[in-house]
């Protein structure tokens, strides 16, 4: 009978290998899925995974899509490392869009270079405030942060819906539920002519750097790691668990808020009822795929962005339903979790013993 035996040391090679294996298995599964949907599997694979990268423009689109995923994913990885499960990044993203977007609308007629910084700042604050609520409920009342942050996501989406249908609706917008278009002063500058590549990507790369340094070189980053790995040791060292919970929610909320305002001020240009195709949830997968390591998150973000782009591409080119994207994302995570077991445990063969006599 086979049993899983805990390894003495985490297998470093498996830690790197298992995401790769998971992706490989996903591609294989893709072949099966495409066949079932009556599409030529190889053509579909090409359309989904390769074709988007064949043009320069396609490449920049990949980066544009990856930007929010990376920003949010990097923030989530800190929290997950510290065993704080922020599942409500979607809500913090939305609130960032609302707070920053609201500021942009408020300053719509101002012509000043201070508008953009103000908009960005408010966006970050919006995400922070929304992230502080679960932190407060967890530290004060011991309420599970998974459920509270998630519920707040739904609330945030409803607030957005209310605003764009009501008080913030563009009067000159033919009754569509959308806000006025932001003025140029509130928009993130484009980095490359002819593309949608904007400063938001710069923020994403910066966040990877900053969080990487935070985790690997600072005392705070160290505290996050210890409190997640060994709470008793954290206590022994005198680390403040409450402070760490607050900080991890503030950081991940702030980054999600930044992602939200960057999306709205960079790519979209106004507030709409839906400003995110589920970035907050996909970012969770990105965080795991990237091994909770900022650099890993960078690559994982690009890969997951590919599933979005590929999905859109396949929809247009070969009529694949849009939902395939979500399916692939779920499958990657499943395979990753399954492959991960071999990084922590070793497969062992043991002669069969009845449960009663084993103890």
């Amino acid at each position, binding site marked *: 009978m086979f049993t*899983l035996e*805990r390894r003495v040391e985490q297998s470093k090679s498996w830690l790197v290998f298992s995401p790769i294996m998971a992706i490989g298995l996903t591609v294989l599964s893709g072949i099966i899925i495409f066949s079932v949907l009556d599409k030529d599997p190889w053509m579909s694979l090409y359309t989904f995974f390769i074709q988007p990268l064949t043009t320069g423009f396609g490449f920049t689109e990949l980066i544009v899509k990856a930007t929010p995923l990376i920003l949010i994913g990097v923030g989530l990885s800190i929290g997950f490392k510290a065993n704080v*499960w922020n*599942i409500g990044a979607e809500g913090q993203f939305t609130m960032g869009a609302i707070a920053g977007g609201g500021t942009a609308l408020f300053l719509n007629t101002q012509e000043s270079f201070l508008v953009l910084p103000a908009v960005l700042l408010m966006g970050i604050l919006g995400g922070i405030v929304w992230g502080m609520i679960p932190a407060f*409920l967890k530290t004060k*009342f*011991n*309420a*599970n942060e*998974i*459920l*509270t942050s*998630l*519920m*707040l996501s*739904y*609330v945030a989406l*409803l*607030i957005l*819906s*209310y605003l764009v*249908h*009501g008080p913030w609706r563009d009067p000159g917008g033919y009754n569509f539920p959308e806000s006025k278009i932001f003025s140029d002063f509130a928009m993130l500058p484009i980095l490359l002519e002819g593309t949608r590549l904007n400063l938001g990507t710069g923020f994403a790369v910066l966040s990877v750097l900053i969080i990487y340094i935070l985790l690997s070189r600072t005392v705070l980053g160290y505290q996050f790691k210890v409190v997640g790995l060994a709470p008793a040791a954290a206590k022994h060292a005198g680390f403040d668990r409450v402070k760490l919970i607050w900080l991890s929610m503030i950081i991940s909320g702030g980054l999600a808020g930044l992602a939200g305002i960057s999306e709205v001020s960079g790519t979209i240009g106004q507030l709409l009822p839906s400003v995110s195709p589920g970035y907050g*949830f*996909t970012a*969770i*997968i990105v965080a*795991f795929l990237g091994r909770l390591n900022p650099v890993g998150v960078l690559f994982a973000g690009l890969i997951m962005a590919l599933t979005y782009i590929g999905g859109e591409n396949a929809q247009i080119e070969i009529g694949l*339903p*849009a*939902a*395939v*994207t*979500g*399916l*692939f*994302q*779920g*499958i990657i*995570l*499943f395979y990753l*979790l*399954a492959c*991960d*077991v071999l990084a*922590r*445990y070793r497969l062992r063969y043991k002669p069969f013993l009845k*449960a*009663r006599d*084993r*103890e």
Partner: protein
Amino acid sequence: MDVVAIVLTIITASTPLLLAATGELITEKSGVLNLGVEGMMLIGAITAFAITTITDSAVLGVLAGAAASTSLAFVFGVLVLIFLANQVATGLALTIFGIGLSALVGTGFVGIALEPLPKLDLGLLSAMPVIGEILFGQDFLVYLSFFMVVLVAYFLSKTRLGLILRAVGESHDSAHALGYPVLLVRFLAILFGGFMCGLAGSYLSLAYTPLWAENMTAGRGWIAVALVVFGTWRAVRVALGAYLFGTITILQLHVQGWGLEIASQFMSMLPYLATIAVLVLISRDGAKIRLNAPQSIGKVFTPSR
């Protein structure tokens, strides 16, 4: 204000919550946290809808929906119990996967309208004013939901198998030391949870609103998980919680008709805000949680030696 109509809509709104939460209750009582309820409900919903459309049989549809969800729960069980994957992450994966797969399968079924589940007709009894419709005019899933609550409550408190389940959830090490098959018990509990989620999803797409829409659960799966906490892991309390939430959900719809000047979105927020409120209320009492929550929940079980 038609009280009967309101009560009827409360029942319809509460039933999916009740079914899903009762299933999750058994899963958690065995010591496993399954956050994939939302995904399993959606799979159940689309499968039931699809099969009913194709075969014209609601019964087949419900059975198919339950079977589909149970299969998904099976995958969860394998990952969490045998591959020892992190329960929170795996549950999330289940939800994301379920949302994706159901959306994919559902693309061919958008816009189709079905007959809602047939309601019971006991002739004179059902024709009685007020009580007739409420008690004797429901569809079979509603009656099944009540039956399940009673069954689960009885199972947990009065049967030996229920006792073993509770023991496993309390302390898997002690249960293992006594010789009970911890993994098997948990697996069955997970499958049962999946089955119930399938029923809940089927109800949504066949009775609540007999149509399919992507992501139509709108967070009900998560509310069901919160309901288990709210009901402090006791079947009857969980059922009451489900009805409380059903009431809140319906309230928001009817408030429009009362001429209050509140935007619909704020009313829609009520269930989610209420979930947060009840979580806070219950979680505050650390002692109560410790007493009622299955102590081994989320902990990895590795039989040593």
